């Protein structure tokens, strides 16, 4: 049989296995090892490189290259399925313009240099001014990569200026969880999607952004199960097509809707008195709002939500009063299970923490919490936003395992675990993302006290809001130095002074943590191109260079290197020399060290080798009497969480109020920081598309994905377009107070904005929508609001109709 026939047989076998047994059959035919074996490829597991769903793929390789991808049937998350991005994931390694060599800007020209020189350049910058050095990282960092960067900065340099791009996507979810439950991350898991009766999407488009998760729900429905799906959104999307109800609200007014539900629960007497009495306290804002607010009674809470009648909410939000009643009635029914889903829509919001609090609040008030299917669940956009950012704590205020720099006890524990001299960890939080870049883009003599930023695994040149101010302004500041570790040229490498080629995905070992608290491990499978190297190694090599120069900050209590890794015989392993990096499993050594941090907040991780065997495990992973390790699907629920006191039924054991109770918040609706006016009369919202992952750095290198969605566009409502005589495909001028750009119009395209709103995706590096967005951010999470600002659109005189850059609206016929 020819190899191609083997592949085809494997493809069919995988499809048959994923589709399930024939009627009358009870077992699914196994496809994996035997069929995969036939292809002559070697197969190994890895999590998908893209979104926070965390699907597992089987990677087939041959002659040192990735040749095939199959959904991993043994993985609970995706049961063999993948979305269009996931099944092309192997091709991201093979774009022709992979970065292969370190390049330094000399006299304005990027010049190839050796790794040795590159490491020296960075070490020089650190030594010259350690306090002015910053790292800007990512929710795509592996857990060991983030952990190393964190320890290098906070444990080594005593400098807390490290923050990740996840600040731009889920920081409000973090502050929402912490201020509600006292500890971060969702209580439930994806099983909630399999068991809910009602699924409510709050400003969320999982059909495009988390497609495999969404297909779990669609699949239930096509099996004949009844699921009520409700889309609460500001624009119709592919998700809306699957929903029975679409509640279109005016941007920013989701807080009024949530308060409206609470109002009805109380007014109708349908709130869950027993759950609330046993497990909740109430909170409201202090005069100057803080994350912890002030304690209030139920009676005070009742008074605060009193004004939010369905009619009042309709006036604010535009959602008809009867639809608000529908939500109130659903939450008031105890015999159904309700799951709320959200992602960037609620998080990229200047009231992001507040709306997170309110959605948790309606679930707590109604008792729709803690049973499978009854859950407020936030999703993450990046594959390890939870694992690397939230758990390792690579945020400017955090330390590993849910600790914070401002807490003396936490600092002392960290110093002990890191074997550092007492007092090394700085108590003052570092600069969060927007502030870090603002300081970097401000002249030093005017207070711009960040001189160097090292960017790893992210592309701020495309994703920062108000890009001119927060990124481009660096161009004129000669004493500022930008280092970018990347896999392909991007808007960030374009401005960089030093570019370091990085290994990507299965070109290195890794560990990720997905949206449902699942930690996933994989091994290096193929070599990176040219001289590209692991990000983890890059940081460790700089740390070692500093140590060898005698830089005190890289020494622990006993004078040893802070990243000391030793053989069993006690001899030091020189892994900082690239040729020795894989002599040992550095990831495993770092993970085992990090694991010690995870007990404090009951985010217990198992030993590294358990993850090698498993297809991910959800923390807390607790060792059983027989020595095996058991994961936890439902936190705070006695039936599943080993840390809940017997008989308590539910227990929020990290409660803010230290009494095992969660907080139900009142947070009022407030006006957005910028609204349409006479000059800029429309709303602009930004977001993602199915085919591209974030800034498109990887997916634009996959011809199938690039062709499917070749360029950015502006979605317009047909009435708005007709009013100005704009036709589909025409390039128009889109302007905000911060900038302007020309884009082709897509009317009646994939998404359908209402009148008065336009939408632009942010994946296209040739059309940078963040030249237009507002940098206003949530006061607690510091997360910017990319979802709304005021905009105007205009025809360009004499601009002919053209399709350039327009998504292929008519490409449905087979070729």
């Amino acid at each position: 049989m020819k190899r191609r026939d083997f592949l085809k047989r494997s493809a069919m076998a995988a499809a048959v296995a994923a589709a399930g047994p024939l009627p009358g059959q009870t077992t699914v035919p196994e496809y994996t090892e035997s069929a995969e074996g036939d292809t002559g490829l070697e197969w190994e597991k890895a999590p998908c490189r893209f979104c926070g769903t965390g699907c597992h793929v089987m990677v087939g390789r041959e002659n040192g290259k990735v040749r095939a991808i199959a959904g991993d049937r043994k993985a609970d998350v995706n049961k063999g399925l993948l979305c269009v991005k996931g099944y092309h994931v192997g091709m991201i390694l093979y774009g022709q313009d992979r970065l292969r060599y370190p390049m330094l800007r000399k006299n304005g020209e990027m010049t190839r240099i050796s790794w040795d020189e590159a490491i020296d350049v960075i070490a020089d910058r650190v030594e010259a001014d350690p306090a002015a050095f910053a790292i800007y990282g990512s929710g795509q960092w592996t857990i060991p990569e983030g952990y190393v960067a964190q320890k290098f900065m906070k444990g080594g340099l005593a400098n807390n200026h490290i923050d990740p791009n996840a600040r731009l996507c889920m920081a409000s979810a973090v502050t929402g969880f912490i201020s509600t439950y006292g500890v971060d991350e969702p209580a439930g898991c994806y099983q909630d999607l399999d068991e809910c009766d009602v699924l409510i999407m709050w400003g969320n488009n999982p059909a495009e952004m988390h497609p495999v998760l969404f297909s779990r729900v669609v699949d239930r429905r096509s099996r004949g199960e009844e699921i009520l799906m409700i889309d609460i959104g500001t624009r119709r999307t592919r998700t809306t097509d699957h929903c029975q109800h679409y509640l279109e609200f005016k941007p920013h007014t989701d807080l009024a809707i949530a308060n409206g539900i609470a109002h009805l629960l109380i007014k109708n007497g349908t709130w869950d008195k027993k759950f609330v009495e046993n497990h909740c306290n109430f909170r409201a804002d202090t005069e100057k709002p803080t994350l912890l607010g002030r304690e209030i009674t139920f009676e005070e809470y009742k008074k605060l939500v009193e004004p939010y009648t369905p009619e009042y909410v309709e006036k604010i939000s535009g959602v008809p009063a009867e639809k608000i009643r529908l939500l109130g009635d659903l939450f008031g029914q105890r015999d159904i299970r309700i799951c709320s889903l959200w992602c960037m829509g609620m998080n990229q919001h200047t009231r992001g923490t507040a709306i997170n609090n309110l959605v948790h609040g309606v679930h707590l008030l109604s008792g729709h919490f803690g049973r499978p299917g009854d859950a407020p669940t936030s999703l993450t956009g990046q594959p390890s936003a939870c694992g690397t950012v939230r758990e390792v704590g690579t945020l400017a205020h955090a330390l590993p395992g849910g600790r914070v720099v401002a807490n003396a006890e936490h600092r002392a524990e960290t110093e002990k675990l890191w074997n550092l001299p007492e007092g090394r960890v700085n108590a003052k939080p570092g600069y969060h993302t927007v502030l870090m870049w603002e300081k970097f883009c401000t002249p030093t003599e005017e207070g711009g006290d960040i001189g160097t930023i090292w960017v790893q695994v992210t592309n701020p040149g495309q994703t920062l809001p108000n890009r001119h101010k927060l990124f481009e302004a660096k161009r004129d500041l000669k004493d500022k130095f930008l280092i970018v570790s990347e896999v392909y040229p991007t808007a960030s490498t374009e401005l960089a002074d030093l570019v370091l080629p990085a290994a990507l995905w299965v070109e290195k070992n890794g560990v990720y943590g997905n949206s449902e608290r699942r930690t996933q491990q994989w091994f290096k499978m193929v070599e990176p191109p040219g001289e590209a190297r692991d990000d983890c190694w890059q940081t460790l090599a700089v740390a070692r260079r500093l140590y060898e120069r005698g830089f005190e900050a890289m020494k622990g209590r006993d004078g040893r290197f802070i990243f000391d890794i030793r053989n069993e015989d006690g001899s030091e392993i020189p892994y900082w020399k690239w040729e020795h990096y894989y002599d040992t499993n550095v990831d495993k050594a770092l993970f085992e060290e990090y694991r010690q941090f995870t007990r404090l907040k009951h985010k217990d991780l198992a030993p590294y080798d358990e993850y090698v065997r498993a297809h991910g495990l959800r923390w807390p992973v607790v060792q059983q009497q027989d020595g095996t390790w058991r994961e936890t699907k439902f936190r705070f629920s006695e039936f599943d969480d080993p840390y809940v006191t017997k008989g308590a039924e539910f227990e929020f054991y990290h409660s803010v109020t230290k009494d095992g109770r969660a907080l139900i918040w009142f947070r009022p609706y407030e006006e957005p920081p910028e609204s349409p006016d006479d000059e800029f009369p429309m709303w602009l919202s930004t977001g993602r598309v199915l085919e591209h992952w974030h800034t498109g750095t990887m997916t634009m290198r996959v011809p199938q994905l690039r062709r499917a969605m070749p360029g950015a566009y502006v979605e317009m409502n047909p009435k708005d377009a007709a009013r100005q005589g704009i036709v589909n495909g025409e390039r128009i001028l889109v302007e905000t107070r911060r900038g302007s750009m020309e884009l082709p119009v897509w009317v009646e395209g994939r998404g359908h904005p209402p009148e008065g709103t336009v939408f632009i995706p942010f994946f296209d590096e040739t059309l940078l929508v963040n030249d237009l967005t507002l940098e206003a951010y949530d006061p607690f999470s510091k997360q910017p609001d990319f979802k709304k600002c005021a905009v105007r659109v205009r025809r360009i005189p004499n601009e002919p109709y053209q399709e350039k850059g327009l998504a292929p609206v008519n490409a449905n016929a087979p070729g």
Partner: protein
Amino acid sequence: MPVSGLVLTLSANGGTAAEAISALKARPEIECEAPRGNKLPVAVDTLDRTKDQALWRWINELPGVDFIDVVFISFPEDEDSPEVAEAC
């Protein structure tokens, strides 16, 4: 020259689903197995990436197919082809 394995979720409307199966079977690049309930396993073998892409779109738009899940994909060995270069 990609080979892929797909699972198609067929619509609850038996008539349209049957028409979709017939339309799929009529295409030489597509091989169908017997449906499992509303799930139809198919293997797709196209000559080049353009055809692969177009076929995927066609399936996606086919009345009677509610959802496509991809469970297997192989990549061409000619990753240095002009098409990939053009992507960059």
